[in-house]
């Protein structure tokens, strides 16, 4: 014969996995979400790339001198730029014409441009953007044109240096020295700018909390709904009169939800790793330095997430016992959701080391902050912090479980109801 605990857990799994909402949240969601996220990022990249393949640029030449002709042919020879030289006589007319052409940019070469350059007097070229779509590709078009103009300006410089001082290397005058950026990380010095490196690690440490948060919310939702369903259908009342200890009933419900959450964790983590690999893999491999979280780190993170989940589930189960039905449980769960989301947002947007003490204490007291804090600590290789953090969540979970068990042993589990209605009858 199976033990009563196993019987309850198995029933719980059967019941939950047949719930389409659970199935959607735990299995289908990650399978859909991560490819969509990956697809969206790469699609955004390709679309920008496509948009920049050929950029239509209008040009008004008010100079007609040697240098402006040279600039026009320089731009014309550039593959990325589709140059249209306008016949207009004034900037006003040129703007109207450019707008009609649908070109995103107009370059105005002023009168006296060539004369100025030849006489070593700085000249000004104006570029006019036509912002229409407010998309990321619009400024990128500007970058393309600017870099072509910059190239031309360097060309002019070196020609001017050549004619002024024929026996000097123009390179040495234009850029007497250059800067080679390197970054020290984990005992290795790598040839890469710090922004780029931090960008990679940040993506990791931003995406991970998102995944953890979604998982905690889905699991809490599942557990709360399952308990509330038992209350609504009076199956809980029935369970409480069978010859099985109350603690076994609580443990069965909890472990059933934990198993589902564990399944979710596996699916979400796999999806997340696939996503990270697709986006960051080539870059990290080329870098050839252990950036981000180590295998030990992942193990610590797993423990932290598991304990937090356990705490969340214990709270969700206890709280939903107070509710009369599923809807009541959902609204009570709203408070937990806030407790999950607030630390998430705060930790996402700020560096908690610089927070005021009160906010810091509040953040550390909320158990749901800890998986995120642990991820940050792991990136910083602060293992002492992760030990404290895990001890705290463990203690918190034990307390919640103790309270839940005490509560399950009283009659409150039958009579407790937090309704926002007036008292019924008499």
């Amino acid at each position, binding site marked *: *014969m*199976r033990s*009563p605990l196993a*019987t309850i857990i198995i*029933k719980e799994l*059967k*019941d939950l996995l*047949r*719930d389409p909402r659970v199935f959607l949240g735990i299995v289908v969601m990650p399978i859909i979400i991560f490819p969509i996220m990956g697809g969206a990022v790469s699609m955004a990249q390709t679309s920008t790339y496509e948009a920049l393949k050929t950029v239509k640029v209008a040009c008004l030449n008010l100079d007609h001198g040697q240098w402006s002709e040279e600039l026009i042919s320089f731009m014309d020879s550039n593959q990325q730029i589709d140059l249209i030289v306008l016949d207009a006589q004034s900037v006003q007319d040129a703007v109207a014409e450019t707008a009609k052409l649908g070109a995103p940019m107009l370059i105005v070469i002023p009168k006296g441009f060539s004369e100025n350059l030849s006489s070593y007097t700085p000249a000004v070229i104006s570029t006019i953007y036509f912002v229409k779509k407010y998309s990321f590709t619009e400024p990128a078009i500007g970058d393309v044109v600017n870099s072509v103009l910059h190239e031309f300006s360097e060309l002019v410089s070196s020609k001017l240096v050549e004619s002024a001082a024929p026996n000097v290397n123009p390179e040495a005058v234009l850029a007497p020295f250059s800067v080679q950026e390197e970054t020290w990380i984990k005992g290795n010095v790598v040839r890469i700018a710090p922004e780029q490196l931090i960008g990679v690690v940040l993506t990791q440490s931003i995406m991970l909390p998102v995944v953890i948060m979604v998982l905690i919310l889905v699991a809490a939702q599942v557990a709360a709904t399952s308990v509330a*369903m038992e209350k*609504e*259908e*009076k*199956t809980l*009342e*029935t369970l*409480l*009169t*069978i*010859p*099985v*200890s109350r603690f076994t009933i609580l443990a069965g419900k909890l472990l059933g939800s934990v198993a589902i959450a564990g399944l979710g964790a596996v699916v979400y983590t796999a999806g997340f790793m696939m996503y990270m690999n697709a986006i960051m893999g080539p870059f990290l491999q080329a870098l050839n330095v252990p950036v981000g979280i180590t295998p030990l780190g992942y193990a610590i993170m797993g423990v932290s997430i598991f304990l937090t989940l356990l705490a969340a589930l214990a709270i969700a189960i206890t709280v939903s016992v107070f509710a009369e039905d599923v809807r009541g449980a959902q609204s009570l769960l709203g408070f937990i959701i806030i407790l999950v989301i607030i630390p998430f947002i705060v930790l996402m947007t700020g560096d908690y080391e610089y927070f005021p003490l009160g906010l810091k204490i509040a953040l550390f007291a909320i158990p749901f902050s800890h998986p995120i804090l642990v991820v940050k600590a792991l990136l910083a290789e602060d293992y002492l912090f992760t030990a404290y953090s895990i001890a705290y969540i463990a203690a918190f979970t034990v307390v919640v479980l103790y309270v839940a068990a005490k509560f399950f042993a*009283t*009659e409150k589990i*039958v*009579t407790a109801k937090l309704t926002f209605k007036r008292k019924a*009858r*008499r």
Partner: protein
Amino acid sequence: MYAVYIEDLRKRFGDFEALKGVNLRVAPGEVYGLIGPNGAGKTTTLRIVATLLIPTSGKVEVFGYDVVSQASEVRRIISYLPEEAGAYRRLTGLEYLRFMASFYAKDGEELERMVEEGARISGLGGKLKEKISNYSKGMKQRLLVARALMCHPRLAILDEPTGGLDVVHAHHIRRIIKEYASAHGTTVLLSSHNMLEVEYLCDRVGIIDNGVVLVEGTSEELKERYDAENLEEVFVKVAGGA
């Protein structure tokens, strides 16, 4: 020894006293019906006997076991059907019976016997292989009553077992309770709003109102004592005074 022994039972919810000194005795093998108006305290009494609620004061015993200090002994010999109960919708009827039976059966063989008996009592046949979410209210209630009886309790506590059912389903449920109780000598404590049902099913009847049992006896005794044609008249004379 009584199957159910209740003496001066009081129950308060906050400052509201739902039971104000209930006295009630049910002999082993007896089918006892508790009737009374809405809010009289029937469910509260049954929940206390079923170890769900703790009495504020008074004594409640089931076959000599105290429902508070010996709750786990009591739970081993009772089965309880809550008022307006449901079942796990995503399980099939058969899965539900097996789930509940596994808490009472000592081995696999007994488990199979219980499930088989539950299936037979329910009379649901092939429908037992369907998910409970497909069941009508009547079918669900038949399943739940079968569940309560299949595990051979010494005391079955049934809160309005036919409440809200159509005539056919209600009739089926009454019949199985009566047959099962007489075949196994099971004690049944039930509540009801249906006087015909109580007259048909119950050996003895208690009329409860406002948290006290007003009168007790067989329906014959009560009809004679109140000079009434039927139990309904007795009920109105005893509890309808307000």
